[in-house]
Structure formats: C-alpha cells, structure tokens
C-alpha cells in the first residue's frame, strides 16, 4: 500500500569509523541532493573528530562509545529508524564512494513494492571509475554464483553497501541476532530471500573511496570466504525463525 509521497519518511544511515577526512562532504552531498531525508551518522567509536564534523554538517550523530564494526554500526541505525518510525532506510558508506544522487532511484524501487533495493555498480556495464582489484573480482564472482544457487536470482554486486530497505526489513534486522557485526554480505542476501523479502538491484555509480581505504581493506580474502560460507550455513540451518515479519502498518 502506498502512502501519500510527502508523508513517507526516509533516513539515510552513514556508518563512519575515522572518516574525518570525508564525512562532512558526504553529509552535505546527501542533504544537497536529497533535501527531504534525515541524515544519521553512526560514529563507530572513531578516535578522530568524525562525530563533531558530522554534527557541524547537520547530521544527527549516534556515537558508539567503542568500535563495534560496520554491521553493528548499521544495525544501530536500523534500531534508531525503527524507534523513530521511519518508512525507509538508505545506507551509504562514510568514505564518499557512493553517489547520493542515486538515493531517489533506490527509494522509487521500494515504492514500486520491493523490500530491498541494492545499488549495483555492475548492472548496465561498468559505470563510473570504480577500478576493481582482481582478488575481489574473483571473490565476487564466487559469491555471485553461490547466491544464484540459493535464491535463483542474479545479484551482480552482493558486496554493495549502498542499499535501501523498507520498514519490515530493517525492523527484522534491528531485532535479529543473525545480523553480523562486521560485514553483511552474501549471507544477508540469502537470509533476505529465505525471510520472504523481494530484492532488486538498481544501477549506481561508485567511486574509489575518498580516504583510500575500502571497507574490506586488511581483510584476508581466504578468511573472509570461510567466514561467509559459515554465515550462509548458519542462515540455512540456524534456528532463528525465517518468517516474514508482519508489515508494520
């Protein structure tokens, strides 16, 4: 059911860990291109002045007293969105690699009845100047096929952190013990499928991280693959009830 457009409330969640170099620009870019959304920066125990700069740029700041990890920071945002009755969440990385001009398209996809919209840099060929290191390309190919195997739907960019969700989805994640503390990835896409949510990709442009560190930097790829396979195993055979949570009004 569609609400009248002007009463739909969207919050943009920006998890940020030591992003003082880019956070101000990221927040102002979001508010400039999307004047109707609220911006919430989740400061994940940064040791620099990320929180202060985000506040100055006009964002609401949730400061975690210790560093919990990307996924746990994001989940804080889902909890906040649920408490404050938002209809949609959009998540954007704090390093400036996601272009906020695509927020509107992600939201439109949700309004067309999808539960999750994932911004993909690989739909419609390679847009932008995102140059992709080889080992990540291999890993991505591997998880792409794995996802296809489980959900029979082609997801071209499973590691994309640029996503939008409707309330039943972020409400589900806000309460889920299965939501990972570090990096939600292919496991979450499979979890979404088994929970009965509809996922669709939307072509977006991504840039190389402005501050030069990717969210997977320092990650040992092999460990990551094993971790992800175990996550998928937990999703498939775990005992958390995978039933779609009732659409909250």
């Amino acid at each position, binding site marked *: 059911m569609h609400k009248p457009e002007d009463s739909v409330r969207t919050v943009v969640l920006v998890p940020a860990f030591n992003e003082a170099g880019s956070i101000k620009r990221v927040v102002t870019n979001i508010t400039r291109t999307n004047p109707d959304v609220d911006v919430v920066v*989740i400061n994940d125990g940064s040791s620099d002045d990320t929180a202060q700069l985000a506040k100055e740029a006009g964002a*609401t*700041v*949730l*400061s*975690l*007293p*210790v560093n*919990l990890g990307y996924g*746990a920071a994001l*989940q*804080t945002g889902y*909890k*906040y969105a649920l*408490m404050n009755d938002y209809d949609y969440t959009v998540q954007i990385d704090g390093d400036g690699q996601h272009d906020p001009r695509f927020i509107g398209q992600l939201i439109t996809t949700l309004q067309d009845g999808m539960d999750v919209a994932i911004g993909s840099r690989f739909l419609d060929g390679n847009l932008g100047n995102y140059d992709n290191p080889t080992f990540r390309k291999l890993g991505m190919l591997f998880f792409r096929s794995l996802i296809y195997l489980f959900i029979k739907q082609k997801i071209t960019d499973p590691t994309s952190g640029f996503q939008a969700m409707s309330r039943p989805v972020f409400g589900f994640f806000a309460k889920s*013990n299965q939501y990972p*503390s570090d990096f939600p990835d292919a496991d979450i896409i499979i979890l979404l499928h088994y929970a009965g949510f509809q996922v669709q990709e939307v072509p977006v442009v991504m840039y190389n991280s402005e501050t030069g560190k990717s969210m997977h930097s320092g990650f040992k790829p092999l460990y990551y693959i094993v971790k992800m396979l175990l996550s998928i195993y937990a999703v498939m055979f775990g005992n958390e009830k995978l039933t779609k949570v009732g659409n909250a009004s």
Partner: protein
Amino acid sequence: MPPKAKIIIVLLSFSLFMFVLNLIRKRQLKIEHSVLWLVVSATILVASIWHDLADGVAHFLGVEYPPALFLSIAIFFSLAILMHFSIELSKLKDQNKNLTQELAIYKNIIEKIERKTRNLDEHNSAHERERAPLE
C-alpha cells in the same frame, strides 16, 4: 611412585579443589561456571590419592600405558572448559553490542532533551528581561 612425589601431587590437587570451593564461597566464580571446574579438580584429587584407579580403568579399557589415558581425559576436560569459555564469550559480545547500540541511541535522545530545555530556559529568561523594565 615415590612417596615424596605423591605427597606433593596430592597436596597440589587438594589445594586446587579448595581454591575452586573458596572462589564459589566468595562469589568470585559464578555457580554455573564452577560445575566443570569442580568436576575436574575433584577428579584430579581422587586420581592422585587413589593411584590404582587410573591403572584399573586403563586396564579395563585395554589401554597399555595408563598415563596416556589420563592425559587424554585431562585434555578432553581442558577443551570442554575452553569451549565453554568461547560460548560465554560469544554471548557476552552479543550482549555488549546490544548495550552499546542502545547507549548510543539514548545518548542522542538525552542530547535532544538537553537542547530543548536550554532553549526553553533561554526563552524564559529573555521573557523575564523584557518584563523587568515595567516594574
């Protein structure tokens, strides 16, 4: 086994057992964590006093070298305690995460309320200043 060595080993295992009991008494060890430790220290104590027990059990199971059996059992219990720690640690991490997240959200709410009251105070005092010259 030479009697001196036996005395030392019995004393050591006895003090381990008493140490665990003392921790429970002083509530420094949660009861639910203490059960495994009690079982382990009691087993060590009994085995150190009653030497033939280990030999008898090994013989019964057809193990030729009794100390091997004893070491295997010891390793098994150590692993069980370590696994128990891992499980507890995961649980603690989860609880810690939830607490931290809620803390951040409530900190934000408090900031909002503080801002509101400050604005209200400023508004009120401005109001009083306006009225003052009339008196």
